[in-house]
């Protein structure tokens, strides 16, 4: 498929990007508000075109472990879910990180805790970047703010996942998942040939040829000294990501007296609030996080030095704000504004919060 202009939901964009980016397999379980991902894949029947395998698993626990099994053979394997399902996957995610298996997981967040609501939320920030499972590990975490980014980030995810042998999380929410916007699709990237798979994933378990020792994919190491060395290696990998793979967008920050920090759909609402503030003559900028891990610590700190206050806007009780305060070493007045439980704040509310909590 060549580059085309379409109107499509974020969830559908994820599915189509998986096909277009040469993904080998998808394993999932239905949950609102992301079921369109698997529905689109099943309707598109990519097994007849690209050869991509799509399977509805018996649970999210099975899905993530199917991702483990398939991805450990050196193939591009993905899953998607929403918050409660992602909670079920946490065990699998720490195993994937511990076994250094590249893969893609998409979380289209909804409100919690517990079964919560099916409406959009951003309350899985801690779970995503502070280690939802056990052990010292990180997921490279991308936060799309548009349908186009939902699509594009799938392609980016595969590059990062295989470059670092690390799971990648696309952290979206019900608003972007359900929203339809303009989308430019890309030319299809062919699935890897057998030779490419072997070259790109020499560690994969696809059947040991006589020419190499057997490959083992495991996260088990009973020798504590060696496990410490392995952990240090992981930390070095995460440090390299922090150095090289940070992504963010700074809008109107050059002359800003105040900035709003936000990601995903909150950043869209914040953008509108910023425009409304500028119309009133208040110099507001927007610092949008694109990677949540690695967090753009240095970049935010540099901008924060020049402003009088920061409003963090997220659909949670205040999670991302902790990393904002760490980045700025609490050097500037920083407040949180958020709605949660599935309520989306309005641009007017954000502006009001900015005026009342920061500017006053």
């Amino acid at each position, binding site marked *: 498929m060549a580059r085309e*202009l*379409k*109107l499509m939901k974020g969830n559908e964009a994820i599915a189509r990007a998986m096909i277009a980016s040469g993904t080998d397999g998808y394993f999932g379980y239905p949950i*609102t*508000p992301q079921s369109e991902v698997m529905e689109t894949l099943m309707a598109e029947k990519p097994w007849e075109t690209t050869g991509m395998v799509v399977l509805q698993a018996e649970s999210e626990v099975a899905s993530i472990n199917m991702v483990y099994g398939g991805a450990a053979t050196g193939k591009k394997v993905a899953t998607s879910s929403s918050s409660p399902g992602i909670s079920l996957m946490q065990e699998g995610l720490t195993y994937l990180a511990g076994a250094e298996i590249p893969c893609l997981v998409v979380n289209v967040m909804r409100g919690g805790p517990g079964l919560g609501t*099916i*409406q959009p939320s951003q309350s899985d920030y801690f779970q995503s970047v502070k280690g939802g499972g056990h052990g010292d590990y990180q997921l490279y975490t991308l936060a799309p703010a548009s349908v186009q980014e939902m699509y594009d980030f799938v392609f980016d995810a595969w590059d990062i996942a295989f470059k670092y042998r690390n799971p990648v999380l696309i952290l979206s929410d*019900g*608003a972007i998942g*359900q*929203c*339809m*916007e*303009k989308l430019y699709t890309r030319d299809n990237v062919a699935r890897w040939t057998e030779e490419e798979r072997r070259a790109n994933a020499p560690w994969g378990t696809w059947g040991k040829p006589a020419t190499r020792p057997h490959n083992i994919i495991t996260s088990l190491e009973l020798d504590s000294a060696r496990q410490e060395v392995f952990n240090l290696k992981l930390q070095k990998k995460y440090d390299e990501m922090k150095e090289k793979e940070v992504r963010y967008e700074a809008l109107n920050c050059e002359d800003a007296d105040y900035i709003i920090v936000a990601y995903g*759909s909150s950043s*869209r*609402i914040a*953008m*509108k609030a*910023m*425009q409304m503030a500028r119309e009133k003559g208040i110099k507001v900028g927007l610092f949008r996080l694109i990677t949540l891990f690695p967090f753009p610590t240095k970049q935010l700190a540099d901008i924060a030095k020049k402003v009088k206050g920061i409003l963090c806007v997220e659909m949670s009780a205040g999670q991302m704000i902790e990393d904002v305060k760490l980045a700025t070493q609490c050097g500037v007045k920083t407040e949180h504004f958020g709605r949660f439980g599935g309520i*989306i704040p*309005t*641009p*007017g509310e954000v502006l009001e919060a900015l005026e009342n909590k920061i500017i006053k």
Partner: protein
Amino acid sequence: MTEEIIIAGFGGQGVLSMGKILAYSGVMQDKEVSWMPSYGPEMRGGTANVSVIISDERISSPIINQFDTAIILNQQSLDKFEASVKPGGLLIYDPNGITHEPTRKDINIYKIAATAKAQELGISKVFNMVVLGGFLKLKPIVDKQYIHEGLEHSLPQRHWNLIPQNEEAIEIGKGLIECVQKL
């Protein structure tokens, strides 16, 4: 130009697809668009609504709470969204099933008896296009040729034979809309 629209009614009235056809037509005319539905239990027969934004500039928030136009197809939606129309904005409603008329004095109000007309003509399936025609009569934000392309992209190819019927319904709607209150 930025037009922020809410379309609201019962599930099954074609609320979401009306929004989609409008949005897709905007895409074809090289506008920026967003289509943000309510989703959840509403999808299964309750009330449904969708906000559509069509603009010449990059759209910031697809989630909005004040609208230039509200297209209202049942009483619950009228109760819920009448207050969300910006002062000076537009409210269009189908009088079918409406027991309490809108009361705002600071907005333009039009009604379109699309349900009754569609039943009369035996074209209930394209009832939503009659309503869309009424809206386009008042706010011709997308050109006719792009509506055609929007229909092509919104409908599966096997239903393209229904496009002329959809276009006729839009024309019927243009003739059907009547003014209740003009500022």
